[in-house]
């Protein structure tokens, strides 16, 4: 086997036993733990969960962009064979924006309101590539065309406030894609957009996924957004991945009771006989109130005494951490 094929077989991203902790006056608070995740080149992973489940923290941890007092508390994050947790800041900076990039929910937090869009794109190009201003401008126009912005030449000289919300998000996607990164982490990029604009952008993203061959981690609380893009889906609950597998299987034949409850409580399901929606009892616990063993057990209809012990991680290509998993019956 040659080096090249060995490299193609090895995952682009490999997280093993990663934890994320916050240092507080009362000692470290573990927000995410036992995180195990692999992502192949060109693959799209949907990372879903409710607020506080740790999905965004996971994205920031991979980018090496956790804000103190948050930090990676343990484990390895291998990116193309290199452990990101041990890289020095300069090496990490060379990777970020170049071989890995991030798209955030609110493009106004990414874009500088006092600089034109063109200035910002050109700056991002020249940060990683030694090209002249004219060449950078040509690349910037191409980058904007790629994400479906018409009239790109003229719009380069506009400021962010002159763009609509959907157009601004296209610009931040264009910036993320500039250097054809191996990995793009997108954190709820379409959540704040209107239905018709979200549809436009998801179709653009789907085309870009096929064209560019980058791997994506698409973070969302909305399973229906992820359903259209992801090859695989990982479901997080209270700081842990409770289920991970092929997208279609997770969405139609979930094994973990939390995934099943989430799918059944979606409003696009038909109503129950009494006209009501399916609901999961209770709410997700704050970090300090997480229980031992299975963290979902206070809300789980299947929970019993066994669930006080940490659940086993079962399955191979479709993994789930549960003592009493569903047997894979179809939910919809």
């Amino acid at each position, binding site marked *: 086997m040659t080096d090249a094929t060995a490299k193609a077989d090895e995952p682009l991203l490999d997280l093993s036993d990663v934890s994320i902790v916050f240092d507080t006056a009362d000692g470290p608070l573990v927000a995410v733990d036992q995180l195990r995740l692999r992502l192949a080149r060109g693959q799209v992973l949907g990372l879903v969960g409710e607020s506080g489940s740790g999905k965004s923290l996971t994205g920031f941890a991979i980018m090496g962009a956790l804000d103190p007092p948050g930090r990676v508390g343990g484990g390895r994050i291998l990116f193309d064979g290199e452990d990101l947790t041990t890289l020095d800041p300069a090496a990490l900076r060379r990777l970020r924006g170049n071989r890995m990039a991030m798209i955030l929910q609110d493009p106004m937090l990414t874009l500088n309101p006092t600089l034109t869009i063109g200035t910002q794109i050109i700056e991002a190009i020249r940060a990683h590539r030694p090209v002249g201003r004219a060449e950078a401008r040509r690349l910037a126009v191409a980058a904007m065309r790629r994400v479906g912005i018409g009239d790109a030449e003229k719009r380069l000289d506009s400021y962010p406030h002159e763009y609509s919300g959907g157009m601004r998000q296209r610009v931040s996607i264009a910036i993320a894609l500039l250097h054809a990164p191996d990995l793009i982490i997108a954190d709820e990029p379409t959540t704040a957009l209107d*239905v018709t604009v979200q549809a436009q952008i998801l179709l653009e993203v789907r085309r870009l996924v096929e064209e560019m061959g980058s791997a994506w981690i698409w973070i969302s609380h909305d399973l229906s957004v992820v359903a259209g893009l992801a090859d695989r889906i990982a479901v997080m609950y209270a700081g842990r991945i409770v289920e991970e597998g092929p997208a279609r299987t997770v969405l139609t034949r979930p094994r973990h009771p939390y995934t099943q409850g989430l*799918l059944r409580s979606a409003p*696009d399901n038909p109503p129950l006989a009494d006209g009501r929606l399916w*609901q999961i009892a209770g709410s997700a616990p704050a970090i300090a109130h997480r229980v031992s063993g299975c963290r979902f057990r206070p809300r789980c209809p299947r929970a019993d005494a066994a669930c006080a012990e940490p659940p086993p991680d079962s399955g191979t290509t479709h993994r789930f951490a549960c003592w009493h998993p569903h047997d894979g019956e179809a939910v919809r």
Partner: protein
Amino acid sequence: MSAPVLTARGVTKRYAKRPDLIDRGLVATGLKPPGDIVRAVNGVDLDILPAEIVGIVGESGCGKSTLGRLLVGLEAPDEGRITFDGAPVRAGGGPAHLAVQMVFQDAAATLNPRRRVGSQLVEAPVAHGLVDRSDAPAFVADLLRRVGLEAEAAARYPHQFSGGQRQRLNIARALAVAPRLIVCDEAVASLDLSVQAQILNLLLDLRDREGLAIAFISHDLAVVHRIADRVAVLYLGQVVETGRADAVFDASRHPYTQALVVNRLSLDGRLDRLSVLPGEPPSPVSIPPGCLFHPRCPKAVPACAAAAPERHPPAADHWATCNRQDA
């Protein structure tokens, strides 16, 4: 059919930037055109019956939140009238001011973080003479029970509740003055899926148990489809389609509603089903002539730019303002 609790007829609300001295000088000397006028709500008719949930849907800038503020009397319409039980709803008072209450998206922002929940909930009803202060504990316990919380919650502070529980408190705050209609403005938009289902079920219970009428403002079609009895679809401040929820969503008449329905994502993950509309909703400053939707409409013909469309079919429960019904 019982009489509507709330009726809106021809309601219009405009906003204009108040010109400063320099602007006025420039306009007076002809150096600058007069200021832009935002037509946020533009001739809306709406009826809400007792024990009915009316969904008001549309994208950002369509005027749905402004309409909500007009319905509760937080603002006065520039044209048209809103009546509650036949009496006019007036900004800042009038007989309807307790009977119509509002529930906002951000529950944390409507609760005082420094006061115990019980004392906040009882403040308005005591001030309005609806409850005697000596009856406060029993009143609060009953109110909390109605929204699915324990009586002990009264002694706690808002930060000691989860997001879903805070939205229950927010609903309890609205219910405290015994309204007959509540206006919910994106009341479940920031909640997680599992909690969102709980709050929607609570609203359905309040409708069925207590006969509460609800105006449910949301951008989320799936949520509105599940909870609303009737729906009004807003585009650039106008109702473009209204009818029973099932009829509007399953047999949409207006091309805009059809676009919203077809572009709504579902768990089947089929993006190939999506049919992208060109452009984005125009700003309510520059409203197109004729049919408001014609610049983006896949069915538009030149006549659509010329004249405002009529309601089709006229005098039906389910109508759309579109002249291309046979297309």
